[in-house]
């Protein structure tokens, strides 16, 4: 049994984290992966602008940097933003996988142009940032947003009847008008809509978090690890300082 740690960019709160953890059922049991979900000590309210990014990076980094000594075999980030993936790779020798890169690169194994379905257009920067860094912006057919404020704690429960058809319509437009041949859910928080969309849309629909678990497992199985040249180790381990920062953040935010 492999043990993977999944980091969630929300303060640790059992019912909230459990809602994310239900994504574990999207991976077949016989695959043999045990998924542990963990929140952060404190978090920005959203992850949409550079001020948020700076906080999100360090919060997720701190939540994951002991993963290897805790005996985990891989680390995942439960966010299409791929926040903290590079920083964690610089200190860990186990696979660290972000759903953003995994989703886009897998999309290009299934088709030529990808559209992303988003709850609101504020998310667009997360996709253009990752695709831009990979030099793949030209493969983005569109970001189709349904302009609904997302609820990262409660997800889509109770709103299925309203949200699912809107996402379906956005997916159809992405295919017919924007030329997408693969659709990618724009957030791991949309996982509940995946089955509904995949049944009704005529192209592959990628559910980023479960995909990322299996990508990590492939890396684990094939003994492939993130390149140390691209992610050099720091000359000095400063985890005590990072821990002190997040402890102070939690105290300030009253999340502890």
């Amino acid at each position, binding site marked *: 049994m492999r043990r993977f740690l999944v980091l969630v960019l929300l303060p640790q709160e059992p019912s909230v984290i459990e809602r994310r953890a239900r994504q574990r059922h999207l991976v077949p049991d016989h695959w043999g992966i045990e998924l542990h979900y963990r929140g952060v000590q404190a978090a920005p309210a959203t992850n*949409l602008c*550079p001020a*948020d990014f700076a906080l999100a990076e360090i919060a997720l980094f701190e939540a994951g940097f002991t993963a290897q000594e805790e005996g985990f075999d891989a680390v995942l980030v439960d966010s299409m933003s791929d926040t903290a993936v590079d920083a964690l790779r*610089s200190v860990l020798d186990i696979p660290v996988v972000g759903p953003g890169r995994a989703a886009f690169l897998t999309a290009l194994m299934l088709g030529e142009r990808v559209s992303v379905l988003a709850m609101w257009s504020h998310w667009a920067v997360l996709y253009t940032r990752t695709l*831009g860094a990979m030099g793949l912006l030209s493969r983005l057919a569109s970001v189709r947003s349904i302009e609904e404020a997302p609820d990262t704690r409660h997800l889509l429960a109770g709103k299925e009847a309203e949200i699912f058809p809107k996402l379906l319509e956005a997916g159809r437009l992405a295919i017919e008008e924007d030329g997408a041949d693969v659709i990618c859910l724009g957030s791991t928080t949309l996982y509940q809509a995946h089955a509904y969309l995949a049944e009704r849309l005529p192209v592959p629909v990628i559910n980023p978090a479960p995909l990322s678990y299996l990508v990590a497992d492939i890396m684990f199985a094939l003994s492939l690890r993130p390149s140390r040249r691209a992610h050099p180790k720091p*000359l000095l381990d400063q985890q005590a300082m990072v821990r002190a920062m997040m*402890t102070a953040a939690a105290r300030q935010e009253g999340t502890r």
Partner: protein
Amino acid sequence: MPKILVLVPFPMAADQLALRQAQSKAVPLEPGTTLHYRPVKAAPRTYVSQQDYVLADLSLFEAGLSAQADGFDAVIIDTVSDSGVNALRSMLDIPVVGPGRAMFLNALMLGDRFSILAMWKHWSGLYKKTLTELGLMERLASVRSIDIVPDNRNLLGGKEEDVFPKLLEAGKRAIEEDGADVLLLGSTTMHQAHGYLAERLPVPVINPGPLSYKMAETAIALRLSHSRAGYPKPMVEKSAMVRAMMDGAAAAERGRPVEKLS
């Protein structure tokens, strides 16, 4: 009377800060421009890994958060990593200038391909980060490193005779072998070598710190600041949390000597 805040990326003593301040003598500033240098509360020991970049972003972000409220007209980061620049831009309306972007984009106003002169190869990731963001990696002719451990507190003092000729040799090779038509100093901490190199090399040599001062003055004079569409404000601002984090970091680091690097 432009008042500009220069954020220094490491905590340091007054004599070390003076070595940073000396950059202001390398360029004529507009009458009335004043530069105020402010070190961060705590910092990564060096900037060589993604762990360090995360810490660097947060430490410079915190050091500059109050700049607008403090009455400054612009903020500059005294490191070509441009750490904290994006985060500060999403909070502040005044121009925030990073010497990294400034030097790369100015190089392309002077030539087509540039090389970077670095103290050690560990700095390569910093340049790649900004050039990738800009989509300009193919304009980089090379990073030429002289493989000498940099001293980000005391800079090049006392090592001029050793370091300057090595940098000159690296610059010559960048031009002749790598095809560079502009050279960039790979760190604001190398500013003391600029005059020596610029006199002896046949292509423009950019000194990123002083360049960033002129860029900030220009932005103020032309009333240009960063795009709010490109750097949106956070929906919920967390300045108190950021401050608490850096106070926590400073407390954890208090009394700890600066570790020696080899």
